[in-house]
């Protein structure tokens, strides 16, 4: 058995508090350095887009713009009159993306909710297998379906169109949305549904009147997830569309790759920023739902 050693205690007390402050400072510095690492590209992107090409050539990544010029933004968004008629600018493609994202998110979210509901509150034979088949759909590399999808879109007459992209995104979003809603509904007590059934409500009535009204959190998570993924998609956009029907990420990439004359980095950066703003805004405003989507999808329930 030990007893307390008085002198040792005092020495220990003093050295521990010194060590603690040292480590605390180390902690903040490390966290700060990482913060700079993550913020740097965004910072560079923004200030580069506000500089003139002259300034860019003379300065470096970090030099602040002497004069803040929004010209690059205008060029990136709506192009320049006259001479640069051949260059890509973002405005029409931004709207393409909007026209594509809204229906695709709506469709995949709605059916995801319906599927999640049917799978968790109404047991039927094979429901686990059905869910597994949906679940695995989240993991497949899309390379395995690019070719047949291209052919199918062609056969349906909607290749190289926004409607085609809506179809693609709705279909492949289903796996994720079903997963999200299924995990959410599983933790909702079955008793609620049973009570509704005793009260005489049928399948669809329960869905619309009982379950959907309390699904707000997961609907937000799902919509944010789908919006982000579809808005950010490039693979499907570049495989199934080109030219006028392209979504914004494809347009951005084209813009950066092609340049008729001189490389205009400020325009490129402005374009990248514009293409990134919607999802970035959603993230900043609804970040916690974004994170919930990330963790809900991965920590399988």
């Amino acid at each position, binding site marked *: 058995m030990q007893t307390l050693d008085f002198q040792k205690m005092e020495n220990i007390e003093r050295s521990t508090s010194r060590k603690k402050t040292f480590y605390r400072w180390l*902690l*903040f510095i*490390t*966290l700060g350095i*990482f*913060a700079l690492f*993550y*913020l740097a*590209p*965004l910072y560079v*992107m923004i200030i580069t887009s506000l500089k003139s090409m002259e300034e860019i050539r003379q300065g*470096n*990544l*970090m030099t602040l713009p002497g004069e803040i010029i929004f010209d690059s933004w205008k060029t990136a968004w709506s192009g320049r009159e006259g001479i640069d008629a051949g260059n890509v600018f973002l405005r029409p493609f931004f709207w393409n993306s909007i026209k594509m994202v809204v229906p695709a998110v709506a469709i995949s979210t709605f*059916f995801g909710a*319906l*599927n999640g509901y049917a799978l968790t509150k*109404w047991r*039927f034979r094979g429901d686990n297998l059905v869910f597994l*088949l*949906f*679940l*695995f*759909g989240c993991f*497949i*590399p*899309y*390379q*395995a*379906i*690019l*070719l*047949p999808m*291209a052919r199918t879109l062609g056969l349906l007459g909607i290749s190289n169109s926004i409607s085609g992209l809506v179809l693609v995104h709705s*279909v492949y979003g*289903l796996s994720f949305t079903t997963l999200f809603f299924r995990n959410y509904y599983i933790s909702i007590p079955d008793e609620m549904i049973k009570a509704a059934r005793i009260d005489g409500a049928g*399948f669809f009535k329960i869905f619309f009147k009982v379950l959907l009204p309390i699904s707000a959190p997961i609907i937000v998570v799902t919509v944010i997830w789908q919006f*982000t993924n579809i808005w*950010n*998609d*490039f*693979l499907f956009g570049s*495989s199934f569309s080109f030219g006028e029907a392209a979504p914004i*990420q494809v347009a*951005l*990439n084209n813009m*950066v*790759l092609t340049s008729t004359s001189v490389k205009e*980095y400020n325009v490129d950066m402005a374009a*990248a920023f514009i*293409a*990134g703003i919607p999802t*970035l805004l959603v*993230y900043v405003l609804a*970040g916690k739902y*974004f994170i919930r989507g*990330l963790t809900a999808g*991965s*920590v*399988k329930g």
Partner: protein
Amino acid sequence: MFYWLQKNLPKIAIAPSFAVILWFVYGFVLWTFYISLTKSKMLPRYEFWGIEQYFRLWSNPRWFNAVDNLLIFTVLFVAICLLIGITLSILLDQKIRAEGFLRTVYLYPMALSFIVTGTAWKWMLNPSMGIEKLFTDWGFTDFTFDWLVNRDMSIYTIVIAAVWQSSGFIMALFLAGLRSVDDEIVKAAKIDGASLYSIYITIILPMMRPVFMSSIVILLHISIKSYDLVIALTAGGPGISSDMPAVFMTQMAFHRSEIGLASASAVMMFLTVLAIVVPYLYSELRRQDANT
């Protein structure tokens, strides 16, 4: 009749989605698989050709190069993301007031598309005007950083951009895991005399096995699918020095009129994902059944 309808309504409700999944996912994969067994070039040809395409694939130096790149990329990507993610999560676990803000900063890259990320990093890594110029302006006159146009190093630029984008996600996963550790365990360890470092290494991190597993599976998955980022950052180049299987597949399918070969490469990617995901899902489900 009405009774039958009522009884089967759930199945009917899920049927359209299920049919869609069966067709567009499993049906399409099977079609791709079948085409990989044919001689298809520009258009599909349905005569069975055996596994010739796979021989062609694996004797194709460009494919080998792409697979090699994928391995290098994957190892570095997974390892560095885990390292950074775990470190950041432990640091953030230390009850800091700015935690919410820092979490937002570390995670925001995930909100951006790979094209935006690739474009931004392409500029940062620009050989004459990006980071190289920054350091030479700062006084390190001999500093060069031309990885982007260097055949040997271009693959590592993709690692940098990919880690920047995804490490915050791993941090978020581990932070959630760390937070789920019962406070009393940490108290007990403190009374037992363990240093904070020891507590993390010998007690808490071993408890994080499930998070490790999910993180690795997710990172591997992201890695195999790498396409957008490569296209935006290096377009697979210079030449094909940073080529990856996904890029290879698209090239072969849409630009080289080799859809049989492309399908074979797609099947390889699919099988790889299968080999990772299926055992993982299986062990997860078994673990759940054991717990319930």
